[in-house]
């Protein structure tokens, strides 16, 4: 359990450091807020599809640096989830943990 909590914390920090990059290129309005409730995509989101793709790529590269494993977040598996893993920061962090765990089990 504590191991998983640790994993999730590190996943969150990978997301937040990608936020820094996205925010540095956004205007003064519509900056991403570092909160688990922040909506990333869909109704109420502050980013468009191009920014979402940029964000996902930068999270992927942060995760591979942090965890030493290369992962792909936007793939067919993500698409086939019942609810979108990119809806909020929390769902994305959960999804990162899931992908890493599945990778370990091989």
């Amino acid at each position, binding site marked *: 359990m504590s191991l998983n909590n640790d994993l999730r914390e590190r996943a969150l920090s990978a997301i937040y450091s990608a936020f820094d*990059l996205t925010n540095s290129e956004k205007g003064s309005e519509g900056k991403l807020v570092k909160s688990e409730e922040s909506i990333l995509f869909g*109704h109420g989101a502050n980013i468009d599809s*191009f920014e*979402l*793709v940029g964000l996902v790529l930068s999270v992927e590269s942060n995760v591979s640096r942090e965890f030493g494993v290369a992962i792909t977040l936007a*793939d067919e598996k993500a698409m*086939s989830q019942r609810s*979108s893993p990119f809806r909020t920061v929390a769902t994305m962090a959960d999804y990162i943990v899931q992908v890493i765990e599945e990778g370990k089990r091989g």
Partner: protein
Amino acid sequence: MSISFLKDVVLEKAHAEAIVWHGQSYDYSWLSARIIYWSGRVTSAGIRPGDVVLLQGDFSPNSIALLLALIEQSCICVPLNADRFHERNILAKSALANWIIEIDREDTATIGPRQEEQGHELYDLLRRNGRPGIVFFTSGSTGVSKAVVHDLQKLLRKYAVKRHDLRTLAFLLFDHIGGFDTLFYVLSNGSALVIPETRTPEAVCLAIEQHKVEVLPVSPSFLTLLLLSDSYVGHNLRTLKYITYGAEVMTAATLAKCAAVFPGVKMLQKYGTTEIGTMRSKSEKEDSVWVKIGGEGYEWRVVDGILQVKSDSAMLGYLNAPSPFTPDGWFITGDCVERSGDSLRILGRKSDIINVGGQKVYPAEVEGVICEMDGVADVTVYGEKNQILGSIVCAKVKLSRPESEEEFSRRLRGFCKDRLERFKIPLKVNLSDDVQFDARSKKARRLLSEKADVGNA
């Protein structure tokens, strides 16, 4: 007259809704009166039959009425989307435009002349026959837009046959042959064209719900976005009967999810190119990527795995590029296809075009811009598959002086911002020492794309 079918529609359905824009409704009698008004305005401004008129705007009541008035006046129309202002001068020059009409967000039109001395044999042909024409732009392999000239009398012939009266969303663009097809399908059947506030998943769902849209013509990558955004959850989309899609390869995963999310909605793949127009087509089954194409006036064949199409309503030719037709009149589409009996499966473009959300990106154009940056020795631009956008643009760059990848990526985005449309700016940048100085070949790009796809598998 090319748009005479509209006169019957106006007689039959004068008070039926023709256009819904910003929540307001415009009926066929309004449209008919507006066409007469604009015919008078353009004539008094000095626009004559055979003149080339660039019409910049988005779908709106007046842009539609103006387009129809120009067709009625036998002009040669060049529709251009409102957001392509930075390309307007170049494209007006390519199209040899005599006039520019700009329609702003308030739907007010400004008519202005443009000095143009040059003529063109394709235009002469239209003028001699007293035919209206239309010009669409499609990207060329060198990044220069090719100007595709159609004889509208021929292109509009298929709309004379009455089909289904269905409320349809204007999702495809005003200057795209798909958008043109949506408009004329709707008008010829006396249906309503619903114009969304923007083309985001949320705005599209809202427009479907508020205006009881029955047909949603989209690009496959928009469907992917729509599914990913969950925007469909909070809206009542039960009026929807058909989703038509084209322009890109649809993944089986997206198609299956669509069938689950929109039960009872028929998924129809359309096939068309700017050069030959939109063909009638029928998906084998709702969740099938196999499609039967054709319809009256169209024939097709597959040569070396590439689809070729012959049609009476094909374009007359390009204004600024050599003919893409075979000597016996077949148009080489450049689309790789698989054939099974009389059905086809579209596999993708033969060339290196990167298809980002239905928008074409030619690597050479992006490479040209990046090469202008300080410290760049060489660059190869290639596409990588992406579940959200279909493909993304990637750049492999060799620097002539040390710089971190993060710092360079930031500088690249800043540099490209005012020089390239947003979808053309690379989302992924890799620094490398081994970019070849002669690497700007198709082969090298394809290798990079293949490597990326293997990495993602």
